[in-house]
Every structure is written in structure tokens, then in C-alpha cells.
């Protein structure tokens, strides 16, 4: 009797979708900003509040904007990857310290190492809103013309760094 096999068949389809679903990251949402100019901002620097940093300063260079915070647990996971990568000096990493306290952020970098060329302080999260930050950490790859080429949501792993970010950076730097 075929009709009694229907539940099993429906279940098999469901399992198929769940299995594919496991290989996807639901947090990896394509950003509408990809292909658009990076929103301009000017913010004080973490280690020298007298100085400011603005996105326009990076014109002509390929760079990474990494959104992080000392309160963020996943950032702790990603941090050693960034510290290691920064040693290669391939591309400047600018930190955006998101909704954080300056003292906490400095202490965090002192303890865990500082991979950033410099860090801008987005204390009230306004710049984060412009960039559509909805989970920390997030990383943006920005090209020489100041166009956002990629957004990575969640912690950077050695794999995502080598397979996604670095090839793009190499291509853009050419």
C-alpha cells in the first residue's frame, strides 16, 4: 500500500532539507551595502581620543573594517585569528569598537593582543547603524575606491579568512 509510505517519503524530504540547512549559516545574511560606497564616518581613536579617524583616510587602499567589542564573546574566539593574520601585514585592519567602554576595550587589547592598525570608537553605535551591524563581530572588506566588497558576519575562522577574505583582498589589491 503506497499511501502508507507517504509519511516516510515526506520525512525523507524534510531530512534532506535539514541536512543542507546544516551546511548553511543562517546568520550569514547578504548585506545590501555590498557594492555600495562605505558610509562615511569620523570617530575618535581608541588609544588617543584627541585624534580622529575617518573612513575617507583609507582611500586608495584595500582595508578591513572589523566591528568588535570587549563584551562580545564570539570576538574572543575570532581574536587570535586576527592577531595571527595581522602579523603578515597584508592588509590594514581597522577596528570599530562598538558600544563599548574605552577602558574595557583598551584592557581587552592589552590582554589579548592588538591586531588593529588603529581602532575607532563607536560608543553610541551610530556608525554601526549606518553599516547595518546586527551582530558582533562583523568584518567588511573595502576596496581602493571606498566601495564595500564583502561583509562577513560572525567570527572569522582560519578557513573563512583563507578561502573567502584573502582571495578577495588579493584580487582587489591588484
Amino acid at each position: 500500500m503506497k499511501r502508507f509510505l507517504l509519511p516516510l517519503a515526506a520525512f525523507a524530504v524534510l531530512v534532506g532539507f535539514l541536512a543542507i540547512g546544516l551546511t548553511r549559516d543562517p546568520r550569514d545574511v547578504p548585506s545590501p551595502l555590498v557594492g555600495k560606497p562605505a558610509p562615511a564616518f569620523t570617530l575618535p581613536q581608541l588609544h588617543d581620543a584627541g585624534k580622529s579617524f575617518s573612513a575617507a583616510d583609507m582611500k586608495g587602499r584595500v582595508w578591513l573594517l572589523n566591528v568588535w567589542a570587549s563584551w562580545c564573546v564570539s570576538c574572543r574566539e575570532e581574536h587570535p585569528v586576527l592577531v595571527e593574520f595581522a602579523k603578515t601585514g597584508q592588509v590594514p585592519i581597522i577596528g570599530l569598537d562598538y558600544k563599548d567602554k574605552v577602558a574595557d576595550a583598551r584592557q581587552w587589547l592589552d590582554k589579548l593582543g592588538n591586531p588593529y592598525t588603529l581602532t575607532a570608537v563607536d560608543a553610541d553605535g551610530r556608525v554601526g547603524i549606518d553599516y547595518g551591524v546586527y551582530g558582533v563581530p562583523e568584518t567588511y572588506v573595502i576596496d581602493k575606491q571606498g566601495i564595500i566588497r564583502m561583509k562577513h558576519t560572525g567570527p572569522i575562522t582560519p578557513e573563512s579568512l583563507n578561502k573567502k577574505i584573502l582571495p578577495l583582498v588579493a584580487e582587489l589589491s591588484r
Partner: protein
Amino acid sequence: MTPELGHFALILAFVTALMQGVLPLIGAQRRRTQWIALARPAAQTHFLLLAFSFACLAQSFLANDFSVAYVAQNSNTQLPAIYRFAAVWGGHEGSLLLWVLMLSGWGAAVSVTSRQLPEVMVARVLAVLGLVSIGMLAFILFTSNPFARLLPAAAEGRDLNPLLQDPGLVFHPPMLYMGYVGFSVAFAFAVAALISGRLDAAWARWSRPWTTAAWCFLTIGIAMGSWWAYYELGWGGWWFWDPVENASFMPWLAGTALIHSLAITEKRGAFKNWTVLLAIAAFSLSLLGTFLVRSGVLTSVHAFASDPSRGVFILILLGVVIGSSLTLFAWRAPRVSAGGAFALVSRETMLLINNVLLVVAAGSVLLGTLYPLIIDALGLGKLSVGPPYFNTVFVPVMVPLLLLIAVGPLARWKHADLRDMARRLRLSFVLALLAGIILPQLMGRWTPMTALGCLLAVWIASSTVFQIAERLKIGGGNAPASFWGMHLAHFGIAVFVIGVTLVGGYQEEKDVRMQTGDVVSVGGYQLRLLGISTAPGPNYRASVGEFELSKNGRVLKTLHPEKRQYFSSQMPMTEAAIDAGLTRDIYVSLGEPLDQQGAWSVRVYFKPFVDWIWAGCLLMAAGGFLAVIDRRYRLRVKAAASVPASVTA
């Protein structure tokens, strides 16, 4: 030492699960009495070992043993003791241990209260539970060991997620798990019946009280979760259609359908295959829920860090458990007899419609929950499905179901007399119409949706009351507990519908900027901000607002909403202050400080009849418990007897 003992007990529990799962099953096939007799002691030992293991983990939490990785991740010395205990199930590993503890608890309960059942049946039921336990314990032992050591030990724990530091954590997960793991018993009865090839009314009678009991716990668990979200998240909502809420709601819908179809199978011997399939479906949806929550395939407020290898393991477990039971179903079901015939207008038809509607509802929730995943898997993009979808699909399915609640219990089995039913419903019909016209006016504004809600609620409530009155007239003293249980649960639905309708139609929300001395009025009440001060907590600092609640110039109460900054995390937590009442809640939550002058953003809600939502759920659960204690479930059933199909209610 304690963690090692706990780990060791967990391994022993795995071994007893193997014994419980395999030997009685073979024994039942080959008629080996000793192997059959092994089922009960194995199930009880299994439970005791897991309870011991659980106690060891709890002890590690209470003793702040940060050399246990799981404790270090989810606790902290500053955490109050009650939360250190509840933190046992605050994370992935511990909540799985709670899951399997519940499973073994249900198994042990079956083993001690099933003296009136045939030994072979008990052996098969306990064996199926044992098999499920094997899978879950393998999952825990191989991928999610809660006792894994962290050496050298952490000096201090990372602390429990502040969102979970709430009395809600103490009660909500155990109740919820008790409920959806409880469907494993209905599942085990169904699978045991399929294996034996004897799907009869006796089987339905045996599994009814277990199904209803699990359903009651699930109802309470979901209601508590909803109440927790209401007061903790600070948005004043009571249901968000979040994937994890849906994960608990789908088994509830399937379980509700199962309770009703079991009634047909018990009383009339009909729909046996359908009932078996529902029993499998209810537990499968529980497992699916566990998968969705624990694998992180969907984004949700509940989805904490997850590990893909765990996802694969639990998917395989899901495939084996559900796949094998559905295969068994496809193999055995064709040989099952159809059962008693019935007319178009009969209680059978009513319950069938009830089942169809509930299954459609569960299916639409399943579709909405998995839709983002399906679309992503097909490479069609990313999207999310929100409340508009669920409300659009869900409400039209629920309306006919609610209409039927009043009608169904009046219908006789086999063949019902339409004219007699119409006569007995006449007064309810008039009352319901009047309620639809008048009640929304009394609340201040008539809208079609609120009219519909009031109409449905009064329709159900009045017909329930009239049916009880009819019964009392002919001598209600001998009405069985299940009669009272059914009507109480149905009455609970009416109460629930009133709450949902009135809070949806008449709530008021104000988002305002307030400074000391400012007054905001909502729903005829005035709230004056007396000031905001800071106060220390055990592991946080709080900004505490002081609001004076008054009506018509009379001061009623002072409310103290808080904004907490936990030391372990920078995410501020909102603690709303609620003045709860029979007819309304006044709900205040602090937003953010806005400027240096001490102004804050403040959210104030007027929520009419919102507590009726949870009161309705409690009534439903109470009705369920009443039905469970019905005497007839405890009567001894003769081993060979299959209950004749002519039994009537």
C-alpha cells in the same frame, strides 16, 4: 571526584539503556519471560543512574567547581544559589542531560504504574523508550559531555547568560521538557502496538492518560515561557512566533490532535492508523524541536553558540528514530482493520475535523518555521518569516476549530441528531451574538476581529456551562473525572481567547521620554516618574526607576522597573515592572538614558485582560490533569481482552 562519578553514572546509564532497549524487545518476540521481566528493573535503574548523574552536575554547580568546563561557562561565584542550580540546564550539555533524565523518568513512571497492563506490552514500551535513550545518551557522551574537565581550572566562571537569570529559568525548561519528552510514552505505546501488530482499543486506552499528562506539562511549559518572554524581554508581547517557540508549539498542536483522536480509537476503534501516525508525529516534532534548537540551523533568540558536528549527530538520531518508526508504520498499517462505521453527523466526524484542522495548523507552523531554511537550501536567497505570515495562516484555521469546540461534545458517537444539537446550542448562539455586538462596545471600540473573538469565547464558555448544567440535572455526581476535565479545558480555551482578543484589540503602548516629575497617561491611568536611582545587585548594578501609578488622582501603587548591567556582560537587561490585575496589566519598562539631564526613554503599556491568556492555559492543563485521574484508566485490563467497539461515553 564528583564530576567523575557523574560521568561514570552517565556511562552506566547508557549501558542500562542498552539492556532496557534490546533484551525485553527480543524477549517479547521470543516469549522469554526472564528477558521480558528485565524491562521494569532496567528502566528504574536507568532513571536512578541518571538522577544521580544529574545530582552530581548540580553539586558541581553549587560548589562552584570551575574545573568542569560546562560549569565554568555557565556559572559564577556571584551567581545566587538558586540560579547556580538552574544553570545546570542553562546551556547545551546540561539541557540535554535534563532531557534524557525526563525521558528516563517517564520510563520509570510507566514501569511502576503499569501493573494492569500485559507484561509483553510493558516490555515493548519500555524497550522503545530505552532505544530512544540510547540515542540521546550517545549524543551526550560522544559530543556533549557536561562533565568534561577544564584543566587548569578557571579562577572564575563566565557567568550564566543574564537573560536566563530569572525565576523563569527555574521552572520553564523542566516543565517544557517534561511535556515534550513525555510524548515519548505515547510514541513508545504506538510503536509497541505496531510491533505487536495488535492495534486495538486497549492500546488507545493505555496511552491516553500518558499522552494527556505530557500534554498538560507541555501546556504549562509553553505558557510559562510565554509569560517569561512577556515580563523579561521588555517588549510586552506574549508570543513572537520565534522558531524555538514554534518548536514547542508544533508538538503541542499534534499532541492536542492526538488526545482527541485517541478518544475515537478508544471508544469506537476507528482511525487506528491515523492515531498511531499522530503519536509518532507528536514525538517526532519534539525531536525536531530539539534538533532545531540544538543545531543552530535557524536564527532565534534562543539559539546560542552551536557546533555543526552536533547538528549532524542529532540529525542522524532524528533520521533513525523517526525513519524507523515510519517504516514500521508503512509495513504494519495496511493490515489494520478500519473500525466502526459512522454517519456524516457524528462525534467521529467532529473529531476528525478537529484533527484535520490541528494538523493543518501544525503543518503551517512547520512550513513557516522551516521556510527560511528551505529557501536557503534551494539557493533562492535569504529571508525570514514573521508574525504576519503566522497570523494570516493560523487565525483562519483556528476559527472553525473554536466554533467546533462547543458543538463536538454534544454530538453522539456513530450518529448524532442535528436538530437536538441545534436546540441545545440555541441559547449559546444568542449569547455569543450578543457578546460579539456588546462586549467590544464596552471596551470602547467595535472592530470585526474583537467581535469575532468575543463571540467565539462566549460561544465556547456558555455551551460548556450549559452542558455541565444538563449533566447535573440528570445526576452529575456520577460524571467521570474526564467529563469535568474536558469541559474545564474547553472553558480554559474560552478564557484564553478572551485574553488574546482583548489584549490584541485594546492594548495601548506609549514610548516616551521622561524626566523626574513627568507624567504619562495610558488606558485611564497616570504614571509619574519620581526618580531613577542606582542600586547594586548580587552580580549586577541596576538603574531603578520609581513610578507612581494613579487613577483619577488616587495613588494606587509604586512601580520599580530596572535596567540591569550584569558584570559579566555589557548587554543591559530590562526588568519590567508590572502591576497585574484581573482586567488589566500596567507594564513599565526602562529604555535607555537619553541625556545628561537624567531623561530616559520609557515604554509604558496598558494590557487589558492579558493575564487571562495564561490563566486560560492553566485551566486547560488543570482540565487535562483531571482527565488523567479518571478511574477507568486504572482498571485492570484482562490480558486477552480487546475492548469491544460498542463502549459509549
